């Protein structure tokens, strides 16, 4: 089981997940229409790229965009959650051992304490995100079962990973569950709303280009996002 999950299954998962995300990014660009979107992308590429980058930067840096400043509490939870979600799996020592075995190279590994901390932050962050969906009417009204499901899919690898890490219960079982849930998460990326891992950049880039080209950029006034 372990061998299958970390062997063929893992490769298949990577291929589908990263391949799928790539396809989505390409489809996004192909599906743009300068006339219907009302953005002259090509002739004003320079303004567009500039606006696009400004727009992405404003939203990936905590507290940079006006939105992040207006909601400090949410911003903290949001960034902690996302940073944990991205950084932990990539720089976790155990994952790097696998990388080393498979490819003969590895990335710098996080000290165990930090990795643990990040995983916990992720869990707690996820919990808060679920709670605010229930607590706030303006979020409740747009929340669907699907939103909860995706949150569960996203934190499952952390739950199972932490159980395995603290060796509660049957280590091998939890390890397999951890790997499987991680793979489910990866597989879900291109096919669900989790595709925002790449589509966030596409959408932000696009709106940034819009602002950079016709909504101010060419008039020499940058929007203060």
């Amino acid at each position, binding site marked *: 089981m372990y061998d299958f999950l970390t062997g063929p299954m893992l490769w298949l998962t990577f291929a589908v997940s990263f391949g799928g995300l790539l396809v989505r990014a390409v*489809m*996004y*660009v*192909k*599906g*743009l*229409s*300068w*006339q*219907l*979107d*009302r*953005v*002259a992308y*090509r*002739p*004003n590429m320079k303004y567009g790229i500039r606006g696009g980058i400004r*727009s992405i930067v404003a*939203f990936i840096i905590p507290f940079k*965009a*006006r*939105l992040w400043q*207006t*909601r400090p509490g*949410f911003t903290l939870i949001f960034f902690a959650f996302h940073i944990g979600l991205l950084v932990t799996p990539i720089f976790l020592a155990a994952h790097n051992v696998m990388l080393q075995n498979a490819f003969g190279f590895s990335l710098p590994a996080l000290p165990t304490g930090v990795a643990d901390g990040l995983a916990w932050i992720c869990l707690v962050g996820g919990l808060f995100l679920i709670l605010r*969906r229930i607590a*706030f*009417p*303006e*979020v*409740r*009204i*747009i*929340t*669907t079962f699907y*939103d909860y499901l995706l949150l569960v899919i996203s934190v499952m690898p952390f739950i199972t990973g932490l159980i395995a890490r603290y060796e509660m219960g049957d280590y091998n079982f939890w390890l397999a569950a951890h790997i499987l849930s991680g793979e489910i998460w990866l597989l879900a990326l291109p096919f669900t*709303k989790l*595709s*925002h891992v790449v*589509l*966030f950049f*596409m*959408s*932000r880039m*696009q*709106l*940034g280009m819009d*602002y950079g*080209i*016709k*909504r*101010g*950029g060419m*008039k*020499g*006034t*940058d*929007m*203060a*996002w």
Partner: protein
Amino acid sequence: MPEGKFCNKTPINTEEQLKATLGDKGGKQYYEEMNQLDVDSDKLWASIQKTMKSRTKTWLEICAHCGLCAESCFLYQVNGRVPEQVPSYKIQSTLGVMVKKKGKVDNAFMQMCMETAWSKCTCCNRCGMYCPLGIDMGVMFSYLRGLLYSQGFVPWELKIGSGMHRVYRAQMDVTTEDWVETCEWMAEENEEDWPGLEIPVDKVGADIMYTCNAREPKHYPEDIAEAAILFHVAGENWTVPSEGWEQTSLSMFAGDWECCKDNVLNVYAALERLKPKRAIGTECGHAHRATVIEGPYWAGRPDGQPPVPYIHYVEWLAEALRTGKLKIDPTKRIKEPVTLQDSCNYVRNQGLKDVTREILSYIVEPGYFVEMAPNKEHNYCCGGGGGFNGIGKYREQRNVALRKKMEQILDTGCKLVIAPCHNCWDAIRDLEEEYKIGIRWSFLKPLVIGMLDVPKHLLPPEE
């Protein structure tokens, strides 16, 4: 019954139809007929498939349902923060459902969409600045309006509005003759005070071609006179076209895309005919958006620009003051607290936030200009945007919407509001009518004329 006499899927194309529809006071019969109007699901789905591109598709799909856009919408704020006013909810429950059901929706659903699209969103594009994923509901609601219009689900006034544009190529029944006469009349009327004042029609090769909003010849012709006076004092070589002078597009807010294109091509044709160095549009945000920001795309101009540089009135005015073409008598500057309404249609949609403030630096005594909060690209809609001002059916909702601007103005403590946008100007007038907070409002033109330092030779000879 599929199609009614007034409420149907066919746009108004003749004067006769237009008059008949206008004769249906308040759209009484129109809205009754709407209750029977069938939805052509196949056509609806076909047009969604053809026109919904990756941007809108992606936005609908990846909206994180995080609710961060809620507070960004002034309509959410003034309507007691009911969850039904959350931007994401508004679009998901309308366009989102329409797409999910592949156009298989019924009359009641379409009427709900109509109400949402025209009374719960002014297409002010503010929420787009606050969504982490860059989802702009204003853009999507404009799109939804197009779908609704094509199925006949559009408020009565806007059906008429786009009909006006189709029949007269103006948002009101101003014909070419009416327009030219108004120009002549205004020139004559003011000749005595401003010797040599002219409103040259169809002059080829002028430096400036000036265009305006049909409500000027129709209801405030003095606005045209004021533009003429300022061009005259500034020594500009300018003209107005006899055809293609109307740069607004109610069809843009009605969702009548075909008509939008026809109108803007009419203005561009005037540019090609008269070959001015550049064009200047009046103090109207909506007109500017239609002719300069969106227009080039309707017309299919790949560079996204009008045929000649086309600027908003505030840009010209700032330039004229900066270069000294117009001089202000410092003793006549505004010496009372004054605030400025940023029009979404040229501030958030084209970044013209600093030029207006530059103008104020010339005409307001230092220390008297008070900013609204928030302002510039973070400003709130005046409350009447996107056609909201004109729709009788949603008058009550519009009056609620005005409250945000009212609060903002009251917070500044100013009694004078400068609104260089027709629609904002109207909304602020209505706001005073409705809530009586004791304010005055003005375009820039009359204010500037009142404080000009006019060179002697332009003044009437003394008796």
